[in-house]
């Protein structure tokens, strides 16, 4: 698997697939039995490389006797920042993750979401070129998730490379240039979210309103919600349907392409993997 410079790469997979293990290997928290990994062209064993890497662990937990400002100051010292730089960067980061008002509170009093924000702040504190985030959205409310999404997009705009693992596929679709899907410890596919699910549409959906009593053949296939109708059809039937609707003075509200979502793609992979595992088990018996 390769992550290119300047891209946002989503690492997807079900629980136990090996996402966190892969990230921990990259961060030399665990050691591989074999194989090689490089970041910015350097071996992961080269500690100096960590000067250019930011890392947010999964469900981060920090020294709870420190305040957020103290923790960030502590971590900043390992990056050789001067006292003045440390102070400035810590304030900037606290502001960025929305913890400016809570900076003097000990971390033992922080909620899970607040700890996640501190974790994000310490990951980007030293202006790293590569940011690796393990489940950055977990434990966050919708507002917090949006803030994390904004930070990731901002990092991309600044030309940084972001690799993040997630369960939330809509976030991956929204943010990632490319995604990699890992199931059962094996990489099952890498590509843009579009490539992964296939560009070919599965059909068309039309949402429309029409006055009662109109003789419209489409209504036989449509489902009604309030005054609105929704009907799905193959792409080649679209123009015929539009003519019918025009003839009946219907108001077309939306025409949408039906594409498989990343979630469906993901579920298919997981199910295929399980089926294969069962087959192996049966043949083994």
């Amino acid at each position, binding site marked *: 698997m390769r992550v290119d410079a300047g891209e946002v790469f989503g690492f997807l997979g079900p629980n136990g697939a090996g996402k966190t293990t892969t990230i921990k290997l990259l961060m030399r928290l665990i050691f591989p039995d074999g194989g090689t990994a490089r970041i910015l062209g350097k071996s992961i064993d080269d500690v100096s*490389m960590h000067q250019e890497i930011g890392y947010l662990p999964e469900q981060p937990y920090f020294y709870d006797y420190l305040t957020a400002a103290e923790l960030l100051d502590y971590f900043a010292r390992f990056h050789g920042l001067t006292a003045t730089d440390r102070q400035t960067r810590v304030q900037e980061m606290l502001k960025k993750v929305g913890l400016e008002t809570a900076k003097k509170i000990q971390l033992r009093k922080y909620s899970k979401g607040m700890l996640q924000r501190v974790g994000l702040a310490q990951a980007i504190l030293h202006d790293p070129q590569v940011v690796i985030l393990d489940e950055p959205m977990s434990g966050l409310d919708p507002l917090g998730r949006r803030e994390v999404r904004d930070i990731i997009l901002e990092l991309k705009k600044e030309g940084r490379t972001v690799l993040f693992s997630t369960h939330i596929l809509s976030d991956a679709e929204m943010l990632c240039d490319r995604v990699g899907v890992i199931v059962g410890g094996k990489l099952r596919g890498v590509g843009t979210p579009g490539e992964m699910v296939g560009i070919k549409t599965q059909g068309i959906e039309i949402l429309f309103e029409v006055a009662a009593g109109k003789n419209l053949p489409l209504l036989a296939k449509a489902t009604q919600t309030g005054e609105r109708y929704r009907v799905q059809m193959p792409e080649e039937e679209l123009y015929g349907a539009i003519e019918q609707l025009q003839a009946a003075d219907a108001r077309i509200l939306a025409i949408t392409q039906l594409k498989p979502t990343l979630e469906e793609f993901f579920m298919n992979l997981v199910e295929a993997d399980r089926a294969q595992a069962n087959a192996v088990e049966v043949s083994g018996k």
Partner: protein
Amino acid sequence: MKNVWTVAANTFREAVRDRVLYNLVFFALLMMGAAILVGQISIGIEESVIVSLGLTAISVIGLLIAVFIGVGLVSKEMDKRTLYALLAKPVERWEFLLGKYCGLVMTLTVNTAAMAVGLYLALWTVKHALEKSDAWILVAVYLILLKLALIVALALLFSCFTTPFLAILFTAGIYVAGVFAGDLRTMQAVDLSPATMSLLKGVSYLLPNFENFNVMGAVAHGRAVPGALVGQATLYAVVYGAVVLAAASAIFSRRNLK
């Protein structure tokens, strides 16, 4: 070494904020009680009683801190996963380990120094004066500190490859065995084979000889401690401690963090 110092300073801050130094209150109460009691019942031996009691308390309290906090230095960080973010910084694992070690030794130094002040205060309360020979107490306190530093290194070593509970047991076990290491060397047993005797002798040289640091008896009676003994004990603690820390570092450097 800057990283080592940063980790050490934070370890010291943790000890202060987790109220480790509160044990000083207990020590102060003990010494006050002893000073009052000894003043009433002892005739002529007040000084040696106070010095013996004070040095024993300094040693026991220090031992408890060295073993229990020493074992938790790294294992607590692994359990709570607080070291994940830290080890992703440009920090070598040995720097982290050495920093944690130095942080606790700093804590023990401050704690032991404060208790030594308490001991002198108790002595002054009993005698209403301090003599030149009382300076030997400082030498005894210094040797206790060396012993504690060695115990922290052992606790750290065991916590690098086993559970905290077993690490406490191993450290306590080695301490007890180390107190008797000298006896093991000079033991004359008639019913043991020469091979067993040589094995026991070999083991006794591997064990840390904690008797090297014990000058309590001499100091309690106002006797001088030879400079050679202090130098030898210092060298012994530095070399033995360095070997133990190097082993701990080698193990921790390849340890997978779950």
